[in-house]
């Protein structure tokens, strides 16, 4: 009898295993984004193949754009899975840039300290955002919309106050040769690229330099943050708490998940990511401007949504957000490579977002058995 039971189980398992592989595939939040990325690459491979898009400096171009977006999309995805929004990401980019540039240029603060100050300041603002959302139970949409205006306004007001202009330039004079510049705007593996150029794998400039001098720090930051975000979400207790907080905060609280602390931590994470973005930008371009990061909060959310995050929380993945950012970066730059009039860029982007959301909606219903 026990044998029969075992056989039955074996049969059942075998029959169901096939189903479960398919199911598991369908259940992957990132599936839509990965499929989308393949489509996008095929599309541009055909339409922009000969334009230099897939030459070394062309690849570097869209990888950098996608990398930048990945940094904030990772934070946005984690927060969205945790059930909240942060619309102040874009403004935080501008504000964090000013927190680095103003003390450095106008108060003689060493740039290392200014960067530290920016990170501490941003984390404090993220903490405040989270605290207000958790304590008041107001929708984070509204709370961070207020932060969006406050931070953008403060960025303009403070830069006018201290610099009498809205762009604070000259950071480069203070940043050149420091380790923070190397950390946030350096180029890695430059030896490798010199070698690649010598062997003819990538093109060289007329002056003999390789067309690509190295992998920009911003791309490495993106890879690092995405990797950490992915591991935390899928492989740690905190990750389970993030899913639980976003899936059903009450149910999570009932079993002892510290929902408030998780959410506040996530708001601090998005602020941190925005500051990484800002620091890379300030170090690379040598200036901070009041309009930096305009509308980036929506790009981050778009990337997360294309990557399979649900607007209602509790579902999604960091890997998906990375692919979402990749799609966004490739499309954004790819349209330019094709030579199509970029008047149509936003239309295309909007359609893509709509497609992604519809697709994800179908997937979610399949997964949860909802009708």
């Amino acid at each position, binding site marked *: 009898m026990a044998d029969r039971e075992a056989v039955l189980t074996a049969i059942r398992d075998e029959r169901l295993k096939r189903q479960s592989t398919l199911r598991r595939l369908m259940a992957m939040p990132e599936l839509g984004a990965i499929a989308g990325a393949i489509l996008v690459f095929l599309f541009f491979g055909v339409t922009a193949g000969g334009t230099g898009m897939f030459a070394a400096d062309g690849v570097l171009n*869209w990888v950098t754009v996608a990398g930048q977006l990945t940094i904030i999309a990772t934070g946005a995805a984690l927060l969205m899975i945790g059930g909240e929004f942060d619309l102040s990401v874009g403004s935080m980019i501008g504000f964090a840039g000013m927190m680095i540039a103003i003390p450095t240029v106008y108060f003689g603060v060493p740039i290392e300290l200014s960067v530290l100050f920016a990170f501490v300041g941003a984390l404090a603002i993220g903490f405040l955002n989270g605290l207000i959302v958790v304590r008041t139970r107001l929708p984070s949409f509204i709370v961070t919309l207020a932060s969006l205006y406050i931070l953008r306004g403060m960025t303009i007001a403070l830069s006018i106050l201290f610099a009498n202009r809205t762009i604070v*330039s000259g950071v480069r004079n203070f940043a050149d040769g420091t380790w923070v510049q190397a950390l946030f705007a350096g180029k890695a593996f430059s030896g490798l690229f010199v070698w690649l150029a010598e062997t003819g794998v990538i093109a060289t400039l007329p002056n003999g330099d390789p067309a690509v001098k190295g992998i920009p720090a911003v791309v490495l930051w993106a890879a690092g943050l995405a990797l950490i975000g992915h591991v935390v979400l899928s492989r740690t207790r905190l990750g389970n708490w993030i899913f639980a907080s976003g899936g059903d905060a009450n149910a999570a609280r009932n079993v002892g998940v510290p929902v408030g602390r998780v959410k506040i931590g996530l708001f601090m994470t998005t602020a941190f990511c925005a500051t990484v973005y800002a620091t890379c930008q300030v170090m690379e371009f040598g200036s901070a401007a009041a309009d930096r990061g305009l509308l980036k909060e929506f790009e981050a959310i778009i990337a997360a949504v294309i990557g399979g995050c649900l607007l209602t929380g509790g579902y999604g993945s960091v890997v998906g957000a990375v692919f979402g950012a990749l799609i966004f970066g490739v499309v954004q730059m790819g349209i330019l490579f094709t030579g199509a009039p970029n008047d149509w860029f936003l239309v295309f982007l909007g359609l893509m977002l709509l497609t992604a959301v519809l697709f994800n909606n179908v997937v979610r219903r399949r997964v949860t058995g909802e009708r």
Partner: protein
Amino acid sequence: MLKSFVKLLSAAAVAVPVALGAASVAHAEGERFVFVSHAPDTDSWWNVIKNALKNAAADTKTSVEYRNPATGDIADMARIIEQAAATNPAGIITTIADFDVLQSAIEGAIAKGIPVVTVNSGTAEESKKLGAMMHIGQPEYDAGKGAGERAKAAGVTKFLCVNHYITNVASVERCRGYADALGVELGDQMIDSTQDPTQVYNKVKAYLTTHPDTNGILALGPNSAEPTIKLLRDTGETSKYNFITFDLSADISAGIKDGIVNAAIDQQPYLQGYLPVVFLTQYVRYGVMPANNVNTGPGFVTKDNISLVEKLAGEYR
């Protein structure tokens, strides 16, 4: 599973250029130029330049692509210049909206051997420092100063600078030039009007109500000038202020004819679009290029010469 996707992607990324790289042959005619501006999608002023590019492309039998960052973010603009350089165009025309930000992108393009002409924003010195072939534009500070000198002659002592693009350094330079010509501090006489007409209207209204001793207005373009003209029409204070604006549009022309606007600073943007294409084409084909920068402005459009300008406003003027 994910790994295999990544592999597939990277394989595709490598395979595609190899397959298609051979197809791109250098064109003998029909050179491709890329024009990169800093203006957000919504800035209608750039329509004149787009028209100029169209005409120039037709006249020289070249193709010109117009590119801009959708939100006016200059950091995004740097990426667009890098992108343009990656496509190996025959030449790049770009503004220098922010020298620091665009420096490495523009220098990168020049290092690749792509001829670059700078237009509009930026100064001749910056252009030279970047290694561009020439600069075609209107010196912003000087244009503001020119406006300020006219205003001073008309007796202006306190003014309002309506800035609809406060995040652009050039815009602040214009206000500063105007203030310097009057010999006063800029202080809080510059307001961030935003680009929304209703907001511009109400912000200007609020400022003029709370600062009744204001007697001069400087608007930085149609976005800030048009709602202000409407406001002055609504309140009937059509001749209370010495009103100078940058740039032209149909509304501004009407304002000049009606005496509401005393003068419009015309930097003749058509030339900023048309000339660089023509110059670059000649350079690419025959290796010839003018030795000097071109100042397309400031020219002042007043009641005296408005009739000439009027019917082309917003399209070619």
